[in-house]
């Protein structure tokens, strides 16, 4: 079967639409998954989203869940929905290589908590998705333009969803990897409050900055998935312990009150991004949103150096054992300057982080959400991760952020905005994201008539 003779419209269904149809047996789990499998067969040689594609396992699981659905048995709200998992999370039986980073290569004996929760809810794990390689960029291409990067490090997850090779995927954001790549690929994503989605079974990049993220087409999809995987996990020592209150992405009747950050962030952006955000803000205002300019306090730009020191020191510490093993094995391992960050500076950066957090929270007395671009520019040429400075502050502060699309650049490339909200306000931020989505609309499926793959 090819994408041409598959029931192709099925891959354009949102997760919410597909799950609802499967639940009432209007949609066959097998047909739905075959649409994605066929599209993957056709597009993966161009996109290169998968670090490991379990095509046979995916098809077998789809057949099993199809039989169960026909028998009236639904495992959960995600029955029959396929997912890609960033090659940073443990998926039982699938190789975990962190895309060949750090000399890691093993087959986990158990699922990461979020993977287990996806399965419990009826999700199917199609495979693991690329992130940057240790010695270079990931091979993944942006579905909107193969010469452009999908961003990183959630490269494969974002590109797969952007190309409609999958309806949803899991990413991770240490400095913005779960927000900027989805925006580059024209899809939506949520980075919840630090610790709200369990990190158990996640290959750590930075203990206090890593945030599992949800990537899909719409806020409603994200809410549905978030409700299945978020919440306390006794196995996650850094996780939030508050009980999970289910979220929804119901469009609120009252337009939101948003503060557009007008210092520090805009200075880093290219004009094309600022122009696109201006257009989006005008549309949101026309629809009733109260959007005011808001200033971060003097000195807030210390967030970027503080993030750099924290991330560097934690990364070097966690990965030291792997680089050490590589060195012992005789590999030529380049030294990393973060190995030399003094403990005093790591702790001082953590103090700066506290101060930055204390500076941001009072802004939410004036507005409900903070607005910035999701990236400094349109997706750049090549395969690089892209500039993370729009996103890393919200990883440093640990509050939720999301991205929604604000249209295409003059080059026909996706552009995204980013909202941030106070900790544990996932319900509120998804609702306002849905409101923005309802005003601005969603991007169409990208044109994937690529030249023949090499």
């Amino acid at each position, binding site marked *: 079967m090819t994408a041409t003779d598959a029931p192709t419209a099925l891959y354009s269904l949102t997760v919410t639409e597909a799950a609802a149809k499967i639940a009432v047996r209007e949609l066959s789990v097998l047909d739905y998954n075959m649409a994605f499998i066929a599209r993957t067969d056709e597009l993966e040689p161009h996109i290169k989203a998968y670090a490991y594609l379990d095509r046979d396992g995916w098809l077998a699981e789809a057949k099993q869940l199809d039989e169960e659905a026909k028998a009236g048995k639904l495992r959960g709200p995600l029955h029959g929905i396929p997912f890609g998992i960033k090659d940073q999370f443990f998926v039982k039986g699938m190789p975990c290589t962190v895309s060949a980073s750090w000399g890691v290569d093993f087959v986990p004996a158990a699922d990461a908590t979020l993977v287990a929760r996806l399965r419990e809810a009826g999700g199917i794990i199609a495979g693991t998705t690329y992130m940057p390689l240790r010695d270079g960029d990931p091979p993944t291409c942006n579905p909107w333009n193969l010469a452009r990067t999908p961003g990183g490090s959630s490269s494969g997850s974002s590109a797969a969803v952007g190309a409609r090779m999958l309806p949803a995927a899991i990413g991770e954001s240490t400095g913005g990897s779960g927000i900027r790549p989805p925006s580059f690929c024209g899809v939506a994503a949520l980075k919840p409050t630090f610790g709200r989605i369990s990190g158990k079974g996640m290959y750590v990049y930075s203990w206090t900055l890593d945030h599992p993220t949800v990537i899909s087409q719409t806020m409603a999809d994200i809410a549905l998935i978030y409700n299945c995987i978020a919440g306390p996990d006794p196995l996650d020592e850094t996780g939030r312990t508050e009980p999970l209150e289910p979220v929804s992405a119901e469009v609120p009747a009252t337009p939101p009150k948003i503060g557009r950050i007008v210092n520090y962030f805009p200075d880093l952006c290219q004009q094309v991004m600022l122009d696109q955000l201006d257009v989006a803000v005008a549309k949101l205002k026309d629809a009733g949103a109260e959007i005011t300019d808001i200033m971060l306090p003097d000195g807030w730009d210390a967030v970027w150096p503080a993030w750099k020191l924290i991330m560097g020191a934690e990364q070097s510490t966690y990965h030291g054992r792997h680089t050490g093993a590589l060195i012992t094995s005789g590999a030529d391992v380049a030294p990393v300057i973060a190995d030399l960050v003094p403990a005093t500076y790591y702790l001082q950066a953590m103090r700066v982080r*506290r101060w930055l957090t204390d500076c941001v929270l009072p802004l939410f007395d004036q507005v409900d959400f903070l607005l910035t671009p999701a990236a400094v520019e349109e997706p750049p040429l090549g395969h690089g991760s892209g500039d993370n400075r729009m996103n890393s502050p919200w990883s440093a502060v640990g509050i939720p952020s999301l991205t929604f699309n604000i249209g295409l650049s003059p080059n026909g490339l996706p552009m995204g905005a980013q909202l941030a909200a106070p900790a544990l306000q996932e319900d509120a931020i998804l609702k306002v994201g849905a409101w923005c989505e309802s005003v601005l609309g969603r991007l169409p499926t990208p044109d994937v008539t690529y030249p023949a793959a090499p």
Partner: protein
Amino acid sequence: MRIYPPVTPEEAQAWLTAQAAAAWGEEAAAGLADDIAAMAEAMSVVSSVQLPDDLEPLFP
């Protein structure tokens, strides 16, 4: 490396370069010049932020 009084980027760069040379050799340190400059800039900024004396680190 001291934090107070704040270090300049040049001071941090010299310190990191010396540490890198001691750890990995002069040639490797030279190859890390750009990374060292960026990290030195970060150290300088972080050491320059005026923080309340009783502010504790944030470990989320």
